[in-house]
C-alpha cells in the first residue's frame, strides 16, 4: 500500500513540476488579474490566463492529456488554431459587430490604417536581422498589426511552432494598448496638435453601407488573394449586419459564434504555452520584437498623420494615427482618452474608429502578402 501511495505521489503535478511551470502559472494568474481587476481586454485575458494554467499542469506524456499529444481533447480543440479555422470565424463576428460608417464618411483616414502597418514590415526586417528564419520573422512581424486573430492565422500558416509566444505577445500588447500607446502619442505630438478638432463626419446612407462590404471584399481580395479567409469573413459578417434582412445570422455571428470561438481560441492558445515549449530565449526575442512592432506601428500612424497635415487644409488630429493599429476598439478609445485629457469637449472616438477599422483591413492584407511571399 505504501508503494502504491509513493507511486501516486510521483505521478502528481507537484512531483513532476519544475520552476518553469510555476513561472508560467504566475504569468497565467497575472493575465487573469489584469483581465478581472484592471479590465484589460478581459474577454481575451481571462480565457488565455486560465488556458496558461491548464497548459502548465505537469502531466505524464503519453496519457493523452497535454495539448501537444495527438489524441488529447485539448489537441482537438487546438486544431482550430493550428488549422487557422478560429481566426476567420472571429473576423466574421468582428464584421457583424463593426459599423464602417465613420470610415465611409472620411475615407482619407484609411491611409492612417495603412501607415500603421509599417510596424509589421519593419519588425519583419528586425526579426530577420536577429537571425530568425523568414517564415518566423513574418509571423513575428504581424504582431505589429496588433490584431490577435490575424497574428494567429499567419503564424499557424508560416510558423506553427511559434503560435504560443506570438499569440500571447499579440494579445498581451493588445491588452496593454492603454499603457503602451499614450507615451508614444504624447512624445510625437505637440499640445496644439492634440487640440485639433475634427469636422463632423457626413451622414452615410444605408445603401452605401450595404455596398461597401461587397466592394471592399472584391477590391482587397483581388489585390491580395491570400487575405481571402480573413477579409472574406470580415466583409461577409458586415454584409449580414448591414443588409438588415439577415439580422438573425448577424446576431448569431456577433454573439454566439464569436463568443464560442473566443473561448476556444483563448483557452487553447493559453494552454499551448507549456513551460518547456514557451520559456525559451526565442520567446523572449519575440516579446521584445512584439513590443517594438507595436511601438513602431503607433509611431508610424502618428507621423503619417502629421505628414498628411502638411498637405491638408482641414488639419486632422495626429492622435488619430495611433488608432491605425488594429486593436479595435481599444486604440480608438486611447485616442479619445489622450485627446480628452487636453480638451474635455473634443470627441475623437468616432473619428478614430475610421483608421482603427482600416487597420484591421490593412493588417489582414499585410498578413496575406507575407503569407504569399514567404509561405
Amino acid at each position, binding site marked *: 500500500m505504501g508503494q502504491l501511495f509513493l507511486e501516486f505521489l510521483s505521478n502528481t503535478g507537484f512531483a513532476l513540476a519544475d520552476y518553469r511551470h510555476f513561472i508560467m502559472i504566475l504569468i497565467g494568474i497575472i493575465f487573469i488579474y489584469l483581465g478581472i481587476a484592471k479590465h484589460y481586454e478581459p474577454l481575451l485575458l481571462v480565457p488565455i490566463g486560465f488556458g496558461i494554467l491548464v497548459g502548465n499542469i505537469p502531466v505524464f506524456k503519453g496519457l493523452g492529456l497535454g495539448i501537444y499529444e495527438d489524441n488529447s481533447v485539448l489537441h482537438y480543440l487546438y486544431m482550430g488554431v493550428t488549422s487557422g479555422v478560429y481566426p476567420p470565424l472571429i473576423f466574421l463576428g468582428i464584421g457583424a459587430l463593426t459599423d464602417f460608417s465613420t470610415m465611409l464618411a472620411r475615407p482619407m483616414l484609411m491611409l492612417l490604417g495603412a501607415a500603421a502597418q509599417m510596424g509589421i*514590415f519593419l519588425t519583419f526586417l528586425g526579426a530577420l536581422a536577429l537571425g530568425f528564419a523568414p517564415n518566423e520573422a513574418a509571423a513575428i512581424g504581424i504582431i505589429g498589426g496588433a490584431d490577435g486573430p490575424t497574428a494567429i492565422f499567419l503564424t499557424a500558416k508560416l510558423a506553427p511552432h511559434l503560435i504560443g509566444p506570438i499569440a500571447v505577445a499579440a494579445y498581451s500588447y493588445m491588452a496593454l494598448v492603454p499603457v503602451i500607446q499614450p507615451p508614444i502619442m504624447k512624445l510625437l505630438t505637440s499640445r496644439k496638435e492634440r487640440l485639433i478638432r475634427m469636422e463632423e463626419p457626413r451622414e452615410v446612407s444605408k445603401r452605401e453601407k450595404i455596398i461597401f462590404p461587397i466592394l471592399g471584399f472584391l477590391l482587397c481580395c483581388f*489585390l491580395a488573394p491570400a487575405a481571402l479567409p480573413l477579409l472574406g469573413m470580415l466583409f461577409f459578417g458586415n454584409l449580414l449586419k448591414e443588409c438588415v434582412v439577415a439580422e438573425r445570422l448577424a446576431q448569431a455571428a456577433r454573439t454566439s459564434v464569436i463568443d464560442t470561438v473566443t473561448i476556444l481560441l483563448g483557452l487553447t492558445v493559453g494552454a499551448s504555452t507549456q513551460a518547456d515549449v514557451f520559456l525559451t530565449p526565442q520567446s523572449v526575442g519575440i516579446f521584445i520584437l512584439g513590443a517594438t512592432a507595436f511601438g513602431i506601428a503607433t509611431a508610424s500612424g502618428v507621423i503619417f498623420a502629421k505628414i498628411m497635415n502638411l498637405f491638408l487644409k482641414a488639419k486632422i488630429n495626429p492622435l488619430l494615427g495611433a488608432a491605425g493599429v488594429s486593436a479595435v476598439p481599444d486604440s480608438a478609445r486611447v485616442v479619445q482618452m489622450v485627446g480628452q485629457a487636453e480638451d474635455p469637449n473634443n470627441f475623437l472616438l468616432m473619428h478614430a474608429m475610421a483608421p482603427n477599422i482600416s487597420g484591421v*483591413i490593412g493588417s489582414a492584407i499585410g498578413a496575406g*502578402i507575407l503569407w504569399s511571399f514567404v509561405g
Partner: protein
Amino acid sequence: MYGLENISAHNGWAISLVGITIVFTGLTLLSLTIAQLHKILDLWENKDKYINNRNHKTLTSTPADVAPQPGMPAENLEDIHQYKLIVDRLEQPFSLPKLLDIAVKIGLERPHSTINKLLVKKIIVSDGKGYFIWKLQF
C-alpha cells in the same frame, strides 16, 4: 546568419518594400472608391433629374414610393422606409423604445436622431397612452 546579411539573403528589403506598397495601394484604392461611392449612388438615385437637366426639359415630379411630408427632405425617404418596415412588424400601436432598440440592433444610421425627426415631423405620433402610431400612409 544575422543582421543585414540575413535580411539581404532572404530578400527582406524587397518583401518589406513591396509589402507596404501593396497595403498602401489597397487601402488607397479602397479609400478612393469609397470617396466616389456616395456620389455615384447620388447620381444613380437622381438619374432622371440629371437626364432631364441635360435635355433642358422642365422638371416634372417623379412618382415616389412615399409621399414626402412637408419639410421632410427627399434623402430621408430611405430612412422612413426602413423604419416603416420595422414598425409593420411590431404590435400596433407600437412601443417607441422597442423601435429604437431594433433600429440600434440592426445598425440603422443614427437611430436616435432619426426617430426624433420622425416624431418632430409627426410621422410617428403618440396615442396619448404611452404607445405610438405611424401616421404616414404609403
